[in-house]
Structures are given as structure tokens and as C-alpha cells.
């Protein structure tokens, strides 16, 4: 019993409970008896048998006395089928979680943070949901990490939900195959072939309207509308699609979304949001300074305009009389005055500083009729310097060589109740600002995420103008091609390929399910449609039937679909390849002392 309790350290209760039974076993117990013991434990209803324990027992069973724990006490190890099951279950749970947000009629999720304030986010954006989850299951973590990876969110911007759902479906199919004793490596080989084949099938069907500008723009509009239709902006998708397309076209092919600034102002309705071609700075103009400047010369600066301390280390003021304090104060003022004079010598009529401007210099600026803006944050400064073409200055001794920024008009504008400063007619035509209006912060946050997705997709589409139809059409095209491949592939791999096609079909099924439609019926009809040559059939969620996607104007970017396909396959492969999960003991907090 002593030895046993040694094995079962951590399961004191266990050994205690069964001590009478255990004593019946001989000391050098044979494996068989140990298993009997385990079985008994299970019969009695002790269902939760820790892995560590079972594992230790296996080593006992092999070597009689020799009991060796390899890992630290709290570490656990899961092997083979069991590990695979744990990862499948974890990954599928994640997929099921975001599944209901897919498609134009997908539902939103409320996320409540555990931090202070318990802030609430309402969202439909897969990436946001996944980012906010606290996940313990390692496989689920892989899926989340892979999905919210930079590629999908930053470089493609959309399709995060689709990746997770597709990966989940692939794993669901893989699980069945593993259960019927097909080696995971064979499944992976099949999946790879299928993914390649699916990509080829899509490539054959892409439409590229780059040459025709008019058509290209309508393509962009369609894509924007499709992307936005699943989001909170779907009510005003026309409006926002136009907004997004205009903003992206201003970028002229650059994918740098930094020059599109999004300002959120609560109040008004979503419809009141607008695109402004200038640059809007969310700051106030100093008191007594001009509210409107035409043909502005702007100096963008990063310098201390508060007290301008002496930077030499250890310097301090030590005086012995009040008079001297006054003298030094005067000297300080003089210093500031000189600095302001130097700045004014640049011949500017607008001064924007990253740091604070104290009242004294502000007054000096006001006297000189110069608009001074303080405390513009770092991004604002850089962006302003970028769009106005000026340089960010910190010293002001050589006014002739400092490049000033220019713009046609600076004015104060009102949005809702807030005053903002608008720089219009800037030199760089790329910059523009989107002002979002909405009832509450939640709405605005969600609107910003949706718009960001749309902007990402559009900017990618401008570079890679290949376009596909939406509404489950690409999945059906891929499924068809993959099915054909399965039929011509000899060997076990064909099962995996077939499974891949089933997983693909799951996406239109989910879209239909989320819209409350009869998915079985619709998908079957869709399949029949797709067996005809050159079908454009997809699920028309609005009318609840199979519709012609080209007529309905539902399009998606090829790049997004391709990324979804490849990322999902990669994620599934990564999880399938795992046959063992080793979890280290959690790091101990130093709370015992």
C-alpha cells in the first residue's frame, strides 16, 4: 500500500478510498491485476482517472517494480488516439463557436472582458471573437493563432470565420477517416492534393476586369457589398461600399491602409458617416487663434513647448534670494520667447506640436496670428507630416532648410458636438479620412472593424484583381473539381479527397443554416445546378433559394478565397500531424512564502 500510495501521490483520496481493495493485491502486482484495479475503480464510478496515473500504471505493468515518472508532477502527456481526439475536439469546438456568425444572416456574439470595467464588445468579426477567447486546449490555440495570424487579418483582412469553419469541417471529416483506420499522413497527402486541385479549379473560373476600369469599379463595389453584408453595416451597405471603394481607389494601388484615417464620433446614425478627402485631426484650436487659414504653411514639430528644461543631467536651480528666482524665471521666459521667435521665423501660419504647448507660448503664437495645435499624438504627427509633405522638426535654427507642409485650407469643423480641425487640399492625394457616426461606441467599434475588413479586401483586390462569385459558389466549384479528382485517384488517399469535398460543401450548408433555410434541400439543388456547364448558381439568402450570383451581384476576391483554402488546409494538417500532447506543469506563482 505504501508503494501504491507513492504511485498515486496526488491521488491520495483515490488510494484512501480503495485501500482495502488494494491490499488484496500482492506487492509485486502483475499488469493484469493493475488493470483489474483500474476497471474496478471505474465501475465504482470514479470516472475521472487522471492521465498521469494511468500512464504511470502502464509503466508499472511493464516492469513490475520499476516505476518511473519522466515528467514533472503536474505535467501531463496524452498519446496517440487520445491526443488526436483532444485536439480534434478542441478545434471543432472553436469552429462551432464561430460557425453561427458565417454568412449574411450570421448572428453576432457578445464578448465580455474579464478585466476591469468588464467592457462589452458586440461583434460578428471572426478574428475579434477568437482574439478575445481564453483558450486552454492547445489544438484550439493552434487554430486561433493560425487564423488570427497576420496573413489572414492584416494582409487579406477578411475570411477569418471561413478559415476556422473550413478547418473545423476538415478535422471533423478527418476524424471519421482516422476512426476507420486511415493513417493521418495519408489523410494529409489527400488533403494536400485536394487543396491544390481546388485552387486550380478556382483559377480556371476567375474573372479579371482590370483592363476595363468601369467594370472593375463595379466589381469592387460588389465585393465591398458582399463583405459588408454580413456585418453590422449591412443596412447601409450601399453607402459604405461606395465609401470604402472611394477610399481605396484614392490609394492608387498602395496597400498601406495607414493613409486612410478612421475617426469615430458617437452621435447621429451610421448613414451620416462620410468620407473626407482631407485630413482631420481630432484636436482643438488654441484660444484666440484664427479658426480658418487659407494657403497654410504648416510646421510639424516634436519639441517641448512647456518649460523646455535643461537636458544636461543633474542640473538644478539653487538660488539664495527671491530676486534671483525672478531673474531665472525671466530668463526662462526669454528662452521660450526666443524659441517661439525662431519658430515664427519659418514664415508659418500653423504650428502643430506633438507635445504640450503651455499657455505662454500659446499666447505668443496667438499674438502672431499663428494657429498652434498641441498634443497631436505620434500617429497624427507622422500622418500629418506625410500628407502635408513637411518634415517633423525639433530644432529651429535654420529656417531656410526646414521643409514646411502646405495645404489649401485649415478650418475648424463640427461633427456632432465635437470640434475637429480639417486640413483640406493637402499635397498628397492619397490621404483621406472616414468619419464614422453611430449611436453608441459598440456600434462604432463594430463598424470600424467591418470597414477595416472591407478596406483590406478591396486594397488587395486592387492589386490582384481576380474576382469570383460569392454565396457558396466557389465552394461548390471546388467541391465538384475535388470530387472528380477523388474518382480518378487510386488508393486510400481518395477517401481523404472525398472528405475534403464534403468539408467544402459544409460552408454553403452553414450559410443556409444560419439564414434559417432548408440547407439540405438548397445544397442538393445547388449541386444539381453546378453539374451544368458554367453555372453561376449560389445561395440567395434573401429570397431563400438558389440564385444566379452574377445577376445578384455577389462577388468575392480570389485572393481571399485562396487564403481561406490554404490556411484552413494548413491548420488542419498541423493538427492532424500531432500524435502526442505534452503539457508542462503550469508555472508556479511564488505564493508559498
Amino acid at each position, binding site marked *: 500500500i*505504501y508503494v501504491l500510495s507513492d504511485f498515486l501521490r496526488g491521488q491520495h483520496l483515490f488510494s484512501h478510498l480503495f485501500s482495502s481493495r488494494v491490499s488484496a493485491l500482492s506487492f509485486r502486482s502483475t499488469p493484469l491485476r493493475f488493470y483489474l484495479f483500474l476497471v474496478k475503480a471505474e465501475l465504482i464510478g470514479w470516472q475521472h482517472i487522471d492521465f498521469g496515473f494511468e500512464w504511470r500504471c502502464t509503466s508499472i505493468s511493464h516492469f513490475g517494480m520499476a516505476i*518511473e515518472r519522466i515528467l514533472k508532477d503536474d505535467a501531463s502527456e496524452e498519446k496517440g488516439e487520445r491526443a488526436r481526439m483532444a485536439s480534434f475536439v478542441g478545434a471543432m469546438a472553436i469552429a462551432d463557436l464561430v460557425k453561427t456568425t458565417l454568412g449574411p444572416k450570421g448572428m453576432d456574439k457578445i464578448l465580455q472582458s474579464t478585466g476591469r470595467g468588464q467592457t462589452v464588445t458586440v461583434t460578428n468579426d471572426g478574428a475579434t471573437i477568437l482574439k478575445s477567447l481564453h483558450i486552454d486546449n*492547445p489544438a484550439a490555440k493552434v487554430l486561433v493563432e493560425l487564423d488570427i495570424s497576420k*496573413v489572414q487579418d492584416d494582409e487579406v483582412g477578411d475570411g477569418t470565420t471561413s478559415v476556422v469553419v473550413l478547418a473545423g469541417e476538415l478535422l471533423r471529416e478527418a476524424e471519421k477517416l482516422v476512426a476507420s483506420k486511415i493513417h493521418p499522413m495519408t489523410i494529409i497527402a489527400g488533403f494536400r492534393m485536394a487543396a491544390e486541385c481546388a485552387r486550380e479549379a478556382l483559377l480556371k473560373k476567375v474573372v479579371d476586369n482590370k483592363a476595363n476600369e468601369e467594370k472593375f469599379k463595379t466589381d469592387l463595389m460588389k465585393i465591398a457589398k458582399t463583405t459588408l453584408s454580413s456585418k453590422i453595416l449591412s443596412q447601409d451597405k450601399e453607402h459604405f461600399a461606395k465609401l470604402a471603394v472611394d477610399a481605396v481607389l484614392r490609394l492608387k494601388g498602395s496597400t*498601406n491602409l495607414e493613409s486612410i484615417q478612421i475617426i469615430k464620433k458617437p452621435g447621429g446614425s451610421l448613414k451620416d458617416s462620410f468620407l473626407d478627402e482631407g485630413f482631420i485631426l481630432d484636436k482643438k484650436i488654441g484660444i484666440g487663434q484664427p479658426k480658418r487659414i487659407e494657403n497654410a504653411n504648416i510646421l510639424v514639430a516634436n519639441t517641448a513647448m512647456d518649460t523646455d528644461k535643461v537636458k544636461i543631467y*543633474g542640473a538644478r536651480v539653487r538660488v539664495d534670494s527671491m530676486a534671483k528666482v525672478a531673474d531665472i524665471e*525671466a530668463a526662462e521666459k526669454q528662452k521660450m520667447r526666443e524659441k517661439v521667435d525662431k519658430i515664427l521665423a519659418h514664415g508659418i501660419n500653423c504650428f502643430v506640436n506633438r507635445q504640450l504647448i503651455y499657455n505662454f507660448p500659446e499666447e505668443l503664437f496667438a499674438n502672431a496670428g499663428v494657429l498652434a495645435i498641441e498634443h497631436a499624438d505620434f500617429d497624427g504627427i507622422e500622418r500629418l507630416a506625410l500628407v502635408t509633405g513637411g518634415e517633423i*522638426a525639433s530644432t529651429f535654427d535654420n529656417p531656410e532648410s526646414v521643409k514646411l507642409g502646405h495645404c489649401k485650407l485649415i478650418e475648424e469643423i463640427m461633427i456632432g458636438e465635437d470640434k475637429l480641425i480639417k486640413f483640406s487640399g493637402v499635397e498628397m492625394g492619397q490621404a483621406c479620412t472616414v468619419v464614422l457616426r453611430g449611436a453608441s461606441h459598440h456600434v462604432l467599434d463594430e463598424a470600424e472593424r467591418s470597414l477595416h475588413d472591407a478596406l483590406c479586401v478591396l486594397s488587395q483586390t486592387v492589386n490582384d484583381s481576380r474576382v469570383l462569385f460569392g454565396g457558396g459558389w466557389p465552394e461548390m466549384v471546388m467541391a465538384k473539381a475535388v470530387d472528380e479528382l477523388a474518382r480518378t485517384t487510386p488508393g486510400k488517399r481518395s477517401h481523404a479527397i472525398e472528405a475534403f469535398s464534403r468539408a467544402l460543401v459544409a460552408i454553403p450548408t452553414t450559410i443556409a443554416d444560419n439564414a434559417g433555410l432548408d440547407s439540405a434541400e438548397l445544397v442538393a439543388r445547388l449541386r444539381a445546378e453546378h453539374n451544368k456547364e458554367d453555372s453561376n448558381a449560389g445561395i440567395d439568402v434573401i429570397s431563400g433559394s438558389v440564385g444566379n450570383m452574377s445577376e445578384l451581384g455577389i462577388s468575392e476576391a480570389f485572393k481571399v478565397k485562396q487564403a481561406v483554402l490554404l490556411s484552413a488546409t494548413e491548420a488542419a494538417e498541423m493538427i492532424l500531424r500531432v500524435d502526442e500532447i505534452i503539457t508542462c506543469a503550469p508555472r508556479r506563482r511564488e505564493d508559498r512564502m
Partner: protein
Amino acid sequence: MALAFDEYGRPFIIIKEQEQKTRLRGLDAQKANISAGRSVARILRTSLGPKGMDKMLSSPDGDVTITNDGATILEQMDVDNQIAKLMVELSRSQDYEIGDGTTGVVVMAGSLLEQAEKLLERGIHPIRIAEGYELASRIAVEHLERIAHKFEFGENNIESLVQTCMTTLSSKIVNRCKRQLAEISVKAVLAVADLERKDVNLDLIKVDGKVGGKLEDTELIYGIVVDKDMSHPQMPKQIQDANIAILTCPFEPPKPKTKHKVDIDTVEKFEALRRQEHQYFDDMVQQCKDVGATLVICQWGFDDEANHLLMHRNLPAVRWVGGVELELIAIATGGRIVPRFQELTAEKLGKAGLVREKSFGTTKDRMLYIEHCANSRAVTVFIRGGNKMMIEETKRSIHDALCVARNLIRNNSIVYGGGSAEIACSIAVEAAADRYPGVEQYAIRAFADALDAIPMALAENSGLQPIETLSAVKSQQIKIPTRVMQENNPHCGIDCNDVGTTDMREQNVFETLIGKQQQVLLATQVVKMILKIDDVISAAEF
């Protein structure tokens, strides 16, 4: 055992406080140790070979690593058992010495232990087993030498090197673009290799990664990549023929180490100090400018004013560059690291043909590329990938491939992979066994059996019938006499990828000779060490 029983089966105590101590002696100790070693080997066994599975490791902080690399698995496994730690060390030393074959060495040690256990049960003394293993390992190493091939390559003929690296990479998750990565690795190694001395300093190869892009975007840069950008957003993004000043002093007012105070008590002093401060920044920048620097790389930060002055004087600068990177830059550009502005001279500047800032993706990720350096012997492998996990795994894989390429430059002998070398050794050891009188003979035979474990695991992982496949290949090796080797054909291995031939020459599966030899020697050493332990006393943990 420190626990005995009386005739009624009740235990009584021999060692004081035995509840708190565990003690194992004699055969039990050996068996316990063997079982610990084998448990470790069992974990790695399924990761062997091109179709090996991955392990998912969850660290104490909850980070997940998915890997196939033996050394990494063991390192992150949080091992507690002392014998198991020996196995971890074993894999690590293979990693340090050779860089590849970290899984194989552990699997081999595990199977040696397994065979030893059988012998122990038959009553053979552990020391005799250890000696037998030692003899056998010598035979195996010699035999490896005999079946090895010299293998020609040159600056322009890198195909053979690439093939070998591909063998290494094929078992990793990156095998999708193994060809490309293998080429990158080989080129990187050749760029820094000293072909005359047959040595490669891997420190000159920096493996860096940045999340984003595709695995296919991974590239080899003949120069250095620093994850920094210009200190001022409006500095030029590209500099031709840069003269680089490498500084370890900040562009800030001096901070003497001794405590001091500068008292300001009059207006004059205030003015003087102000002027001095201004002068100070001016001087610093002027000094850099005077020696002809066109780029300043600094280990420390800049004051806003200094930053603008630099920008103003058209002197691009990079700040907060880490110490290691600074050294690499110094090596690559042939510059000297300068700790004080006063010591800056024209000779101490580094030279680089092109310095450019490159931005990635839709966000503002920027990296600084320093290319065409004066000393072109520093290269960077720059990995791109979908997420951090992928990049980390690729880094490990590239490291393995780099090591393989280096080993080939050191010693251009190769043996064939796919388990063929192990099978050949096994046959040779088996044949040699009969010549030894004494108990060692058994140990030597056991060694031969243990060698079979690797091809067996390979076959198993590839979904083949292990015993059938192994015996088929073995007979093939003996049956087909080739002209090169008079006796046997040591090229037959396990056909893991289902290509249809067992001839590893046709499949182009190579491994380095030193790698294989090291595997055999290291595994034998550790097993010997484990066998010699006969008493384990461990104090209680709590």
C-alpha cells in the same frame, strides 16, 4: 528493496523514514533506469522519418509549440526524472555537435536499453553488456566508414549538398517547400564557408523571422537584416554605398557615472548651460558628419533634438540596435564599434553597398536591410510565415539543414539514409559477433538487433509492416552484390515515401557520415552510463 515482509504479508521498516526516501538497488535500479530511458525514446519514436508525426507541447506559460525536432521536444518537455534528463542531454549534445539526427540518437539509445534489459534478465552482468556494446559500436563506426561515399561539390555544383539538406527537411512540417529552403541553406553555408580550412562559422549566419507573408517568401540575404527602422520617419529609406558609424554612445547629454549636481544660481549660468547643451548636440552630429559617415547605427536612443539635427544634416540614423546585431553589423561591414564620439575616425566606419528599409503588409512593419557589405561573409536567412509557430518551426528546420551542410563541408563523406546505414551496420555487427568469445558476444548481437530499431520505426511510421519490410530489405542488402562493394549492397533502405524502390541512391536520401557515427557513439556512451548505475537513492520531494 528497503521494504520487507513478514510471513503474514505485513510490511516492516528497515530504513529510517523510508516513507520519505526512495531507494532502488541492483537489478531493480537498472530496470527502473532502463524503463525511464525507454519512455523517453518511446515518445520520440513516432517522430522519426519523413512520415513521422509531430508533438504538441504546451509550455508552462501556455504557449503551444508543434514540432518534430527531437532536441526541441525533449528540451521543452519539462523532464523531471534524472535518467530521462540524461536522454535529453544526449539529444542536446547531438544537436550541438551535429545539429541533425537528434531524434534518431534517442531512439537508438532506447532500443539499446531495451536489448540490455533482456540480457540483464538472463543474468548477464551489466558491465559485460556495456563492454559488448562498446566493441559493437566500434565495429559499426568502422563499417560506416567503409560504406561511406565521398561526394564531390564545388561553388557551382551544389546539387548534391541540396539533396542532403532536403533529406533532413523532408521530415519537417516545412517539407512543402523543402527544395527552396534546402537551396537557401546550402547557399548560406557556402557564403560563409572557409573551403580551404573546411570550416564554417555558423555564427555568421543569422536566422531571422518575421510573421507575415508565405513560407515561399523566405529569402537569403547577403547581408544583415535588422528589425528596426530609421529613427526619423522622413529620413531616406535607401542609401547607396553607405559609410556606417557604429556607435555605442547615446545622442544625449552626458550622464557621468558619479553623482553630481549642476547648480544654477544666476541667469548667466542658465544662459551658459543652455548654449552648451545646444552646442553639445551640434558637436555630436558634426563629428559623425566630419568623418564622412552616411549612416549612423546606435545602440542607444536619441534625444528629439539630436534626432532632428541628424535628419536635418541628412544623416540617416537607426537607434536601439541590440548588442548582438551591432556586432554582426560590425563584422559584416568591417567597421569598428565606437564607444565615444571623440574616437570616431574615418577608418572605423563600416562599408555597405546598399542599405534599405523595406516595409511589409498593410501595417507598418519595417525592417532594415544592410546588403553588399565590405565583408560579404555574413548572411541572413529571413523567414516569412503565416504565424509565429510556423516561423519558429522553420527556424529549427533551417538550423538542422545548415548544420547538415556544414558537416558536409567539413567532411564530404555521406552514407545513405532511410535506415540503410543502420541495416548495413546491423549485418556487419551480427557477422562480427561470432568472432568474440565470451559473454560479450551476446551483447554484440543485442547491439545488432538494437540497430534494427531505427529502420523498424521508420517503416512503422510510414504505415508499412515493420517486420516484413525490414526482413525484405535486409535480405536485399545481402543478396545483391554490387561492383562497388564486393560483399553487400548497403544502399537498400526503407521506402518511406512509397516511391517503389528501396535503393536509396535512386531516392536521393543521404545523411552525413559524421552525423551517423556520432549517433552511434553518443547513444552507446549514454547507454553504458545508464547500465553502470546500480543504486538510486532519492530524497523525498515533500
